[in-house]
């Protein structure tokens, strides 16, 4: 919430000619402040539930926000974004199980693998538009999912990576300690969101919006649309993969469900809940979905029904995500206040 309010303030103050550098400095400060607040939470609340919750929020938040870079900013509706979540989880898990390299090395290597895979898949997919793009990404996702299922000797098939992921300490950080994992997840989340926000606010980010609104016009003024789309596809994959790594660390394993289409579906669901027109919409959506999921499964076995009604409420009732609604409501309030004043 702090970041959200601060950001709205920042946007309002920036005016029509934002000083890019001061704004970036301010964002660094906000990101640091958010991280400090998150990191101090366990000192205030001793609940382990809260730690688990925030770790999962970090995984889903990174995943959903990176999906929004494609869906909301570029207009690429990917139905297969979950493959990179799964790839991150499996890449990292396998690296730690088979090679025993230090965690930062495995982390970097996993991102490298994701980079290569996303580059290949992206090069094929981003040529296509709309529903064709959606379905080809879905097809690649199922390809990766099937590969995980059938390559039993490497991945353990549908039983997943068994035996736990070893987490040797590095630089004094022991990720098998829940508190350390919590702080590390918060750090990854804040850094990830900060980087993605920089991408969204950069000239490249505005190029993406232009491609979304009118790709032909963009190419007429000399933008290489294919290259821009491919770049954001690969970047988004890297953040989704980071989300997968956090999830793998949390459950100490990787399972084929992480690369299944339902994960991509959840990503879209989160985006619908939170809204795609604001940067923080998916993050809010992720928190919302996880709260809903956790409380509803506690109370009833018919959680599918409840979640379905909620999404119907958002889709038909509000016709937008929660953040879209909040932002509009806030703008209206300001306007009416201005008129009265």
């Amino acid at each position, binding site marked *: *919430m702090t970041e959200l309010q601060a950001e709205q303030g920042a946007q309002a103050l920036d005016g029509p000619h934002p000083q890019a550098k001061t704004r970036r400095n301010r964002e660094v400060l906000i990101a640091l402040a958010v991280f400090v607040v998150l990191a101090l939470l366990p000192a*205030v*609340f*001793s*609940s*382990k*539930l*809260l730690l*688990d919750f925030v770790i*999962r929020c970090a995984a889903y938040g990174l995943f959903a926000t990176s999906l929004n870079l494609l869906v909301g900013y570029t207009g690429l509706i990917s139905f297969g974004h979950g493959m990179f979540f799964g790839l991150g989880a499996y890449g990292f898990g396998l690296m730690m199980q088979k090679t025993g390299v230090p965690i930062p090395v495995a982390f970097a290597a996993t991102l490298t693998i994701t980079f290569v895979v996303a580059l290949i898949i992206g090069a094929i997919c981003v040529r296509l538009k709309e529903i064709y793009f959606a379905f080809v990404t879905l097809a690649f996702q199922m390809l990766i999912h099937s590969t995980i*299922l059938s390559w*039993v000797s490497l991945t353990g*098939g*549908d*039983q*997943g990576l*068994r*035996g*736990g992921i070893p987490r040797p300490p590095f630089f004094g950080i022991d990720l*098998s300690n829940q508190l350390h994992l919590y702080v590390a997840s918060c750090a990854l989340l804040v850094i990830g969101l900060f980087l993605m926000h920089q991408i969204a606010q950069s000239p490249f980010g505005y190029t993406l919006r232009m491609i979304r609104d009118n790709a032909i016009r963009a190419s007429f003024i000399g933008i290489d649309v294919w290259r821009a789309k491919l770049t954001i596809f690969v970047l988004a994959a890297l953040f989704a993969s980071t989300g997968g790594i956090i*999830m793998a660390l*949390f*459950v*100490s*394993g990787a*399972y*084929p*469900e*992480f690369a299944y289409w339902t994960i991509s579906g959840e990503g879209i669901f989160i985006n619908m809940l939170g809204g795609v027109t604001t940067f923080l919409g998916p993050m809010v959506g992720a928190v919302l979905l996880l709260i809903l999921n*956790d409380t509803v*499964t*506690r109370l009833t*076995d*018919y*959680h*599918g029904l409840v979640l379905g009604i909620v999404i119907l409420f958002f889709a038909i009732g509000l016709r937008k995500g929660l953040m879209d609604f909040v932002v509009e409501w806030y703008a209206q*309030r300001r306007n009416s*206040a*201005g008129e*009265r*004043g």
Partner: protein
Amino acid sequence: MTRTRKPGVSRRATLAMMGAGAVTFATPRVARAQAKTIKVGMPTILSGRVAQLGTSSRNGVMLEVEKVNAAGGLAGRQIEMVIRDSKGQPQEAARVARELVNTDGCEILIDAEASSGAFAVHEVARDLGVLCLHTNSETSALTADPKQHIPNAFRTARQGVHDSIVGGSYAAAIAKTKGLKKWATCSPDYAYGRDTTGEYVTYLKRFAPDVEIISESWPKLFQPDYTEVVTKILQAKPQALYTCLWGGDLTSYIDQANIYALFSQMEVFAVNMADYTALTVVKNLPKGIHSGNRYIKTYPATPENAAWGDAYKAKYGEYPTNWSWENATAIMLLAEAAKKANSADGKKIAEALRGLTIKSPFGADGTVTMRAEDQTLVGYAIGWGTTIPQEPYVPQVQAGDWKTIFELEAEWKKSKGYT
């Protein structure tokens, strides 16, 4: 621009509400003191295609928990079950298991998850050190693989390799007397189907070396239409067919194969047939299907087993499943171990569980044992028989020999590099 107080929720009120929300959220609902009750957490699948796994597991557990509580509970502490749905997703299973222990204050976990979910909960048990009883996963590696072994996790379910050994030797005996040489297999395309079929064929060939597999089919899990598979098998003209399809898949398969009169053209061995989930659902149960027992109240043919099955039916309006007895056994073992340890402490119960033999309606000789070396259940009723279309469905069950099972299991472990 002057700002006046506007109707609606004020910023202060919003902040206060957020604060209140945060506090409610973060306060542990349960103080984890030495309460009089002992909470036992149970993540399982209560929604989706295999919801029956969760509901019949829950029934099996509750039936026994009531008895234990009526008799004074675990070392004087009443058991309170906290049962939650994981939707069959491993990450949810892990989350729910952690939540049960960390927030709800559960001191013991009954892991009623299937396949990958069980491994996810196993990692939680490794991480938190909480006593954990796996009740539904039959994947041999869960307990046989020393890499998986942790002192606080036990399995009270069947084990895949036991079934294969008994099934293989039973089938080989029939293959020899009836001269069945050409075999086909038809099993669901996932780890359980592939592994179980592979092991079964291994033991079948070991006992009857001239058997030959002439056709293999791998329908998808939860496939609705089996016409293609049925016609493929009929064209191959095998003398016998093995299948480890289960539940709704098995009943759909039988209903569809009946149309082609498949069962009159070959001997069929269906390991998962003798479970009420399949027996009572098939429209026209063919006579003479060979099946392993999962749960039927007539085998073991003891009054205790029949009484247990009837009590379950009286309470829940349906017969128990294989999952029911496996989960009931977990509670029976816990109760005995707590009595022996005279404590409800997880570590002491774990110590008492190792090597514990208890009287059980599901035992081959009236008892089951928690084997100390790999902390998995042995001595349970395991056998094969043939079906008839009405109750008792499988009248004659030929018991498997646990001595042979132990010998071959040890050999199998060696071949896998587990010992």
